[in-house]
């Protein structure tokens, strides 16, 4: 119980806790294995003091401001409530990084349209994130956003999204938006990594390191 309560009850977080954003309108819990997988990845490659389990934090709760990185995903339309919108705005203004991933491997789908509209309304319109942005070299070097096996495969071609989208605030990414469906790509038990020749979750390290550093 103490371990369960510790990240919530303490006023300040002394270790990195991977936080999944819970919002009212959609299926926020559609990638339940992703947090553990990312935590595993952080431990594999870095010495960051990371909590062994993630937390789920409602966007409408001010305690969401305690986490430097929030992961938000889903398939269904994203409509923030007033409290959620207010907290997200404060979160970005305080230097937090909200990572939004479209769990539909889709082009201009409903999640994409509603989430991007909601982000524009709440923070600012999204814009293409240049592929030489410091995010891509925060830990591992990437030439741009890593592609996923899920991205657009359902459409039968090899077209992929060339950029991630982002809203920058005070010189930092405040909201990072992905249509690449990392939620599907990374949603597996971390033990399965031993069957992979290349760890496809390495980009998550860049996300975490970018969120924690300048």
């Amino acid at each position, binding site marked *: 119980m103490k371990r369960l309560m510790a990240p919530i009850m303490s006023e300040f977080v002394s270790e990195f806790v991977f936080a999944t954003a819970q919002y009212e309108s959609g299926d926020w819990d559609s990638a339940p294995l992703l947090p553990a997988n990312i935590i595993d990845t952080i431990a594999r490659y870095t010495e960051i003091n990371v909590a*062994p389990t993630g937390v789920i934090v409602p966007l409408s709760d001010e305690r969401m401001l305690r986490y430097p990185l929030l992961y938000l995903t889903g398939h269904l*339309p994203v409509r923030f409530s007033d409290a959620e919108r207010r907290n997200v705005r404060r979160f970005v203004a305080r230097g937090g990084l909200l990572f939004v991933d479209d769990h539909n491997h889709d082009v201009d789908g*409903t999640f994409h349209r*509603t989430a991007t509209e909601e982000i524009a309304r709440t923070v600012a319109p999204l814009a293409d994130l240049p592929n030489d942005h410091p995010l891509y070299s925060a830990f591992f070097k990437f030439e741009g956003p890593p592609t996923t096996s899920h991205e657009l495969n359902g459409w039968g071609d090899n077209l992929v999204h060339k950029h991630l989208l982002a809203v920058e605030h005070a010189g930092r990414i405040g909201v990072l938006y992905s249509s690449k469906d990392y939620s599907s790509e990374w949603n597996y*038990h971390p033990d399965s990594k031993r069957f992979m020749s290349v760890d496809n979750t390495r980009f998550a390290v860049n996300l975490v390191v970018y969120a924690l550093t300048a």
Partner: protein
Amino acid sequence: MSVFARLRMVRVILGVGITVRAVAWGIVAALSLVAGAAIADAFVDLSVGSRRSLLLIAVASAVITAAALAWRDRRVSSLLRVALWIEEREPALQFALASAVETGDERLVRAGGSDRWTRSAIRRALRAVAIPLAAGIAAVVVLFALPAGAVARIRSPRAGDALARGGPRPPGASRLSPLIARLQPPAYTDSAATTIDDPADLRVVVGSTVVLEGRGDAAGIVAITGGDALAASSHGDRWSVTVRVSKPLTVRLRDGPDQRLVAIEPIADNPPTVTLTAPAHDSVLRAARGRLILSADVSDDFGLASAAFEYIVSSGEGETFTFKSGTLGARPLHGARATFVASLPFDSLPLKPGDIVHLRAVARDANNVTGPGIGASETRTIRIARADEYDSVAVDAVPPSEADKSLISERMLIQLAAALEKRRPSLARDTLVRESHSIAVDQKRLRRTVGEIVFSRLGEPTGEEHTDDESPARAKSMEELIARADSATNRSTDPIDFAGGESPVVATNKPLLEAYNAMWDASTELELGQPGRALPHMRLALAAIQRARQAERLYLRGQPPPVVIDLAKVRLTGKDKGGSSARRPLTAVDSTRVMLTTRLLRIAELSARDTRAALDSLLVLRIAALSVEPAFATAVGDAATAMRSGNGVRATTAFVRARRALAGAPAARDSLSRWGLMP
């Protein structure tokens, strides 16, 4: 002409003369005051208020002067007084005329020579009028001699007429003063243009045009806004600079060594506010039939353009979803406030069990400069129940829940125990113990019921089968009970966090477990014949049951399989190496506040040495803070206004408010976040 007719003619002539003289003196008084004010204004800049007051005084003086003179000569209306006035000039009449008026017999006066009375009256009237007319002409000449604008400032005072002020302009005087600003809001706002004298801090709607205008030639006058330099243009004897406002900016006007700052704060056109009034709540429908009435209230600060209802229907589950969307009831709107309605025919969609309809109202305003601003209501969801969910949407009358029944019973037991405690002094010890034991039996029975509610959920034996304190169901502490309850459904030792800090099992059962423990203590005291000592425990139990009844119902989306990473095992086992030292830890995110605080303190120091420079710095600081710390910017603006008006107390108060806007409420903190995120 008869004597009396001649007399009445003389009275009319004299009356006209007196009246004209009174009016003329009144006009002279007013013109003199206007001319005097215009001349004074040429040397001392009179405010709009002062000039309006002077104009009122001029008008009042005209009326008073004319009225006073007319009152003084009011006796001209009397024929006898006119007759006496004639007698005074015609001694030969020997009061015959006055006697005739008094007696009404005009035969007392000889008719010859009465035409001299008329001539005499005309001469008198002309003499009376001549002097005020001459004075009036002189005043008019003076007024015409003054610059037209100078007289206009007194005649029709208004904001923005500073440039019309007359008076000599000393050679080498700054062309930046006087200065006016003409504000032209965007056409869609339907607002009139305004003019402001001596602008320093302007607030205008985004998209407005601000024309800064001064006297003199434009050569050499430059307006610097951000990195841009705008040259002033000339028209007549005035110069002007036009700025289009889209963001907070400070206009620095330069005329050689002279500088002047004008801060411009844009007022954002807020998007429409939309409230979906129907449907008022999210709903679950058993079947999608009929029509759903939609209604929304919309309002906007300047004007609405259109509104519509939007719907998205999501179908599917898991990883497979399909969507369809559309709009309903789109219509143009006018004015700042409206209510619009539409209906959603379910048959037209059509909907299957499990489908979710997301509904919201969207309105656009008439902003054609930076907009249109789009406002949306909260989203309501209408879900069509699946076949296996029918039980959850059917509402049937049910008996009170076990928790409710326990509440009633505990309340009764408290009353019995309290009554027994009241009667205690008059009861024998045996009687007290017997009655107290009777209540203890009921209390134990109730405790067993509560235990069954809790432990039956957890799949464990009920807690009351064993009566000794070593019973496995009788936990030694709340922590043990909660851990037992928690572990009953969460197989992990470290379950995920459920948002509120507790797992649902703990959240729902904790109050009942508290009640269970309190009842245990109460029944122990009752068995010992101590109803007074049992009462606090019983009241604790009652409060705990009450909390359990009021606990929010929890809906579980399904708990993901708990995975706890063995950090020690996987630490740094990855094959790839990254640039671990390429970046530095995130510094405090509130550096903006630190920067603003530093600047404010510098300005406070500067204000003691150079008020003008401090004022300019405050304006620049205000514009810089507008988008990041609006409350601070407001306080800084107030401080500047107070300093400009020389009100030191108000300025100090505003400075303090500005500091507090940055510092926030005092708070004691044990440590700082490692990641630099302030709570």
